[in-house]
């Protein structure tokens, strides 16, 4: 049932997403659009060249509660990790963290931020940090 999707934790992330906004001096960025609903999310990563770890991650864009909440939750898991560690995050983990039943159409929403992060990581593979 749809109302099960909109649990308070989802709505809280939607109303006040964590790590939302632009990121000064970002090393990598990736953007994903959901053509069904016109949504768009951009993930930006700032990598510390000394340690190779992500020192900051932020996302911005326009999306439904499911896509914003999912990107917000994902953004909390990024800082302090290496790029390889981030590549180890799978989509099942992202969906599990949301912890809500999703119809097939809404799975795409839930993975929009994850796909944006994936594109940022792809960019990092072709251009390693200096």
């Amino acid at each position, binding site marked *: *049932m*749809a*109302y099960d*999707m*909109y649990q*308070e934790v989802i*709505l*809280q992330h*939607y*109303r*006040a*997403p964590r790590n*939302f*906004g632009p990121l000064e001096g970002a090393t990598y960025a990736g953007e994903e659009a959901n053509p*069904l*609903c*016109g*949504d*768009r999310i951009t993930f930006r990563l700032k990598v510390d060249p000394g340690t190779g770890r992500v020192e900051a991650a932020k996302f*911005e864009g*326009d*999306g*439904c*509660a*499911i896509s*914003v909440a999912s990107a917000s939750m994902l953004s909390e898991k990024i800082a302090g990790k290496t790029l390889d560690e981030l590549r180890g995050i799978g989509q099942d983990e992202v969906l599990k963290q949301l912890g809500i039943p999703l*119809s097939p159409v*809404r799975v795409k*929403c839930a993975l929009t931020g994850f796909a944006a992060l994936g594109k940022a990581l792809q960019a990092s593979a072709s251009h390693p940090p200096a």
Partner: protein
Amino acid sequence: MGLEACRGDFPILSRATGGHPLIYLDSAATSQKPRSVLDAEEGFYARTNANVHRGVYELSVEATDAYEAARARTARFLGAKDPNEVVFVRGTTEALNLLATSLGQSVLERGDRVVATIMEHHSNLVPWHFLREHAGIQIDFVDIDDEGRLRLEELDRYLAAGRVKVVTLTHVSNVLGTVNPVREIAEKAHAHGALVVLDAAQSAPHRRLDVAELGVDFLAFSGHKMLGPMGIGALWGKAELLAKLPPYMGGGEMIDQVRTDGASYREPPQRFEAGTPNVGGAIALGAAIDYLERVGWDELRTHERRLLERLLQGARERVGGKVKVFGPHETRDREAVVSFALQGVHPHDVASLLDAEGICVRAGHHCAQPLMQRLGVPALTRASPYLYNTESEIDRLFDALEKVDRLFAGEKLPTGTAR
């Protein structure tokens, strides 16, 4: 009062969805089908099925007669004098692709211009984009005002600039509900020697059409939005214009003679109907037209006006004024296709939560991305009722929207949020 009695003719309306009675408010995407239409299609396959235009046997003659009777029925529906001006196609999309392709090969030359509007559905844009890419034509877009009406002074400007060979537009916007002044536009276009193409996908289900009154050169519509089955629609064109158009698809039925070094083609409409057509669909489309005309266009209009008023009134008076309707505010300027934004809630979330109440609405860009960009929104929610909907269903829609609003407004919005 009204058309409530017709609800019994639509088998699907007695089903439930998610444990709730079905409230179907997505008829601009596709309408539901009455029993008489379902019976007409099944009846063809059960009793008359044979291929058309080729068998010498009685059954094939019957099938051909039924198919051609559906063509004549469709011509009458459009006010066209000659049934041969009606080409059966899969739907509006195929009709517009056919037109763009064939006009691109005959009428349009590199550097010529096509004028469209910013409210076009992708089906009346992308085929012209193909020509932009492959044939070097230019496309100009007539903008809208704040209430979603076309700025005709822009059309004048584009026409005056010259080289406009085609003006293509929608009769009724599938997002804004705007009814465009087709006759006036056609007169302007013709004064500059341009052909006029009308996308009637959203008007054919709701208005009595008359191609002579509209003054256009070509018109396209889909059966499935007007009680007919999916996969059948029609392209109407003036006989003398169709006669000059090259074929779109090649195959059986459309040829005069085929040799190893080339082929010659039949006259319209067969020239544009390569392969076995959707005979059952065409017959069922005829049944759909019969049904609509039995209801009566005036009755339909009165009923739809009432639903539209209820929708606009609900947007004004309910959900704390948080529902913003896009498109004309006056009912006389629009059809009952109502796209809206619910403040603070994304359309996808609105549609998901309405679905939980058994209410089917569309959320997204409605295949009109340039219009969404113009309106400055990524997506909208759209309610589009039809003859089988009731005012109490519209009330249920607003009950459900109030529930969605309460859920999302459960907390005070902190500053610096995403929305």
